[in-house]
Structures are given as C-alpha cells and as structure tokens.
C-alpha cells in the first residue's frame, strides 16, 4: 500500500487529477447544503453575466436560474451516473469475461459472440435508441450507459482469466478440490484486479462524457439538473450568452481530465513492470 502510494505520487499528472477530483467531489457533497433551493428555481432576471451581482458569482441562465447552483448540483449527477453506471457495467462484464475465460470452448465462443455484437453496433446510437423508447429517468440513463460500456470489461477480464487459469496456484487450488466458483472468485479474480481498477477509472470518465452527451440531446432525466442539459439549454443563446455553454463544458472537461489522469497514475502504480516497458 505504501509502495503503491509512492509510485502514484511519482506521477505528477495523477496528483493534479486527484486534487481536481477532490474539489468536484466536495462540491457535489456540499451542493445541497450551500444551495438548498432547487437549481431549477428562478432567482434573478435572466442572462445576468458572471461577476456582476453579489451572491450570484456566475450569473443566471436564460430562465433566471443560478448558474453556480446548477453547476454544483450537476457535479453530483455527473459523479453519481459515472460511478453507478461503471459499477453496473462491471457487474455485467466481469462475470461474462470470467466465465468465457475460465470455461473456454463453447461457453467462450457464445459469450464472445454476444460481446462482439455489442461492441460492433454503434454504442452511442444504441444508448439513444434505448432512452428514446423507454422514458428517460436517472435509472434508465444509468442502465443505458452500462449496457453500452460493459464489452471492454468482458474482453479484459477474459484475457486475464485465460492467462491466469493455467498458473500453478490455480492448479493447486483445483487439486485441493475447490469448486469452480471458489477458484474464480477467491483465486483468479483477485489477481486480475489491478487492470480492472485502471479500466474502471477510465470508464467513469467515459460514462460522464456519455451522460453529458445524452442530456445535451435532451435524453437526460427531465427532473435533474446536469451539465449536459445546461449546455443543451444554452445552445440557442450562444451568440448572446456564450458563458452559459462555456462554463458547464469546462466543468465536464476538468472532471473527465482528472479521472483520465488518475487512471494513468493508477496504471503506473499498479502495473509497474508494464510502465517501464512502455516508457
């Protein structure tokens, strides 16, 4: 653990990413306390530019809503969607990949065909189709994102399991008479964990981008203030109030950048051999 931290700290970008992410998380947690009124509420006249009125540092949008409050509440939504959809995607991808890699042969063939199908069809279009047909709610947004993002997990886990299953410690476990389930869960998967963690951190970033794109198109939960929705709503007034589109976009950019940097740092820290090779 100490080793891990030393190596992680060695990557300057990863530390910067961690700091940015900490600020975003703090904002998300604090949002309901600092801005207890709904971010949908009209608080001032519309199109108030930033830094012109005390108490509203970022001004108001086209409907007189507090932009800063919207950004803070949006942080919560982005992180929640990013995190939960990644967990759901892992819950689909890890079992599929583990079963395919462990049982090889027909099971592998069938599961990988299934995975390939989901990998081939255009994922963003699939997410749109799912959300357009089923009414968009936060739960469905999360499910749709998970459905389009699990295939890389399955492929990664399959590869790891394939290479681990012939190792001696697995043979030893088999000779001890352990069942397949126990071998996979207690012996193989824990060893496959480092690359899964790295992939998961990058998936959270991609999920946040995906969520913002979907709500930009108007496919987000209509009751929830999110960064993508703010940009989509400000799109038509970009000539007169460009900052209304600019600010939420910067929030997305910084959060996603932070997560990508952390992912790279994790990669360096968890797979030190791999790093040296590719440097």
């Amino acid at each position: 653990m100490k080793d891990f931290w030393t190596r992680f700290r060695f990557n300057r970008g990863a530390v910067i990413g961690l700091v940015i992410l900490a600020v975003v998380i703090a904002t998300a947690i604090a949002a309901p306390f600092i801005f207890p009124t709904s971010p949908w509420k009209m608080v001032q006249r519309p199109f108030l530019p930033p830094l012109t009125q005390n108490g509203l540092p970022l001004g108001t949008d086209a409907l007189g809503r507090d932009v800063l409050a919207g950004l803070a509440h949006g942080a919560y939504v982005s992180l929640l969607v990013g995190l939960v959809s990644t967990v759901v995607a892992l819950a689909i991808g890890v079992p599929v990949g583990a079963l395919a890699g462990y049982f090889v042969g027909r099971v592998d063939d069938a599961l990988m065909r299934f995975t390939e199908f989901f990998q081939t069809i255009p994922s963003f279009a699939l997410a749109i189709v799912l959300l357009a047909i089923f009414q968009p709610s936060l739960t469905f947004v999360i499910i749709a994102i998970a459905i389009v993002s699990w295939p890389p997990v399955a492929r990664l886990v399959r590869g790891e399991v394939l290479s681990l299953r012939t190792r001696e410690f697995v043979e030893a476990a088999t000779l001890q008479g352990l069942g397949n389930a126990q071998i996979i869960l207690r012996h193989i998967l824990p060893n496959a964990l480092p690359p899964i963690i790295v992939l998961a951190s990058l998936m959270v970033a991609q999920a946040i981008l995906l969520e913002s794109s979907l709500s930009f198109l108007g496919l987000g939960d209509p009751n929830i203030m999110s960064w993508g929705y703010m940009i989509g709503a400000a799109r038509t007034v970009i000539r007169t109030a460009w900052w209304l589109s600019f600010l939420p976009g910067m929030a997305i950019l910084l959060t996603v950048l932070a997560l990508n940097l952390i992912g790279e740092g994790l990669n360096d820290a968890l797979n030190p051999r791999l790093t040296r090779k590719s440097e």
Partner: protein
Amino acid sequence: MTRFILGRLIKAGFILLAILIFNFLLIHAAPGDPAAVMAGEAGAADEKFLADLRERFGLDQPLYIQLWTYLQGAVQLDLGFSYRQQMPVAELIADRLPATLLLTGVAFLLSLSLGVLAGVAASARQGSWGDTIISTLALLFYATPLFWVALMAALVFSVWLGWLPGFGYSTVGAGYTGWAHALDVAKHLVLPATTLGLFFTAIYMRMTRASMLEVSRLDFVKTARAKGVKRRVILRRHILRNALLPVITLAGLQAGQIFGGAILTETVFAWPGIGRLMFEAINQRDYAVILGVFYISGAMVLLFNLITDVFYVIIDPRIRLTG
C-alpha cells in the same frame, strides 16, 4: 481473398439480423401499443393509420409471425413510414446518408493522418518539449466533450471571427454550381469535420506513440541500427510499418464511435445527415426513424469494418485470411 470477404459478409449479415431482432423486441418492449410506438408520439397518428400499421405488422398474429413479417420488410429495405415527415423512412435516410458519409469519411481520414503524424513526431523525440506538448494536447482533446468543442468552435470561428460558416451544408440561395459549389460545401465542412476528428486524433496519436515506442525496442530495430541504416529510414520503414497495425485495428473498431460523434456534430452544425435526422426524430418521438437510423448506422459500421479488414490484409500479408 474472396473466401475471406464472403466469410466476413456472412458474419456481418448475422449481426444485422441481430440488430433487426433487437429493434423488433424494443418496439414490443416499449410501453404502449406497438402500432402507436411505430407511429410516433401518442395522438400524432390518426386511427386509420394505426389500423393500417396493425394490419401490416399483423399485430393480432403470434409474435414470431410478426417478427417474420418485420424481417421480410427490412430485408427489402422497407424501414417503415415516418408519420411525422410523411415519407418512407428508407427514403429519408437515403436523402441524408451522403452528407453523413462525407462528414465521417473526412473526419476519419483527417484524424487518422493527423493522429499518426503527431504520434510519430512525439515518439521520435520522446521526452522532448514537442512530445510533452503533443501528449498534453492529446490528453485534453481526449477529455473534451465533442458537442461542446463543436459549439465553442462555431462560436469562435463563425460568430466571433467570421472565418467559416458554422451552420448547414451549403450557402442557402447562393446557387453555386460545379467547383464553386464544391468549395462552398468544403468551407461548411471544415468546422464539423475538424471538431468531430479531434477526439479521434487524440486516440490515434496516443496509440501510435505507444506502438512506435514499443516496436522501436524490438531486436530487428537494434539490428537495423547496428547495420548503420539511417535513422529516418529505420523510423519509416522498420518501425512505422509495424507500429501501424494495432492503430489500424483500433481505427476499424472506432468506426461505430465516429458515427455516434456525428450525431452530436451534425446536431450542433445543422449538418443535414442521418445524425441530425436522428436528433430531429428524438425530439418528435418518431421511433420508426430512430430505429431505421440505428439499423443503417449498424450496417455502415459493418461495411467500414470490412474495408479495414481488407486494408489490414494488404498492409500485412502475414495475416491469414480466415473468416
């Protein structure tokens, strides 16, 4: 080669079939009467139209017969009728498809060539200032929401600077023909294609850089160096050729993603392609169009993958042609 392509085509056919079955199941899983779902927003269609739909899909028949009817239609490129636009979906898509192919094609070639060039430049001087700048830019583009960078580009280059048109496919009412028209379209294409390509440029650059660095450590490169082959020749003939393979594989896999990005860029720039068509259909809950675009985009991706496969075999004849 023929057998290889045939094998791939059969596989592509199966995937298309799966997409169609998936679409069919979605229509039936959606809340409400499937006829109403296909007709679009509740209340938008009149009773006669719904009755027609029910009869055409045989909604009183068992599910598997309905599926058969649906598949028969789809194979003949009958993708349903858009009640909203009063046009067959297949015609709507055929009208818009060329614009999307132009946009995604240009964006793809642009991002692949720029990405590979930048990746080679960065890896040739690893750890230098140039490398740091290129790598940082790639990191930034990789984290930028596509629709947002498109909006910002339209704001800066079209609204503020007035350099390029930020809206549409060609100047309305200008009546250009021949080369003047082509130039006009090209001008309109610059912003959508560049912004769509940015994210993918970042991916290809990172991939090329990593791949170049990896290959440059292999034994045959050391041998070439020891033989006294010139640095630039090693870079081009020994390293780049081998490093390109994984980049091309990746580029093929990304085809679906470029199309997804086109939905966003076409929406921002009012580019009259099938992405924009899908956005309009989302707002109007025109499900027949949404599912039709989804099906056609799947077909496009499969075709694209096939082209990459063939290309791949040409670059590296060692790869065995097995379906």
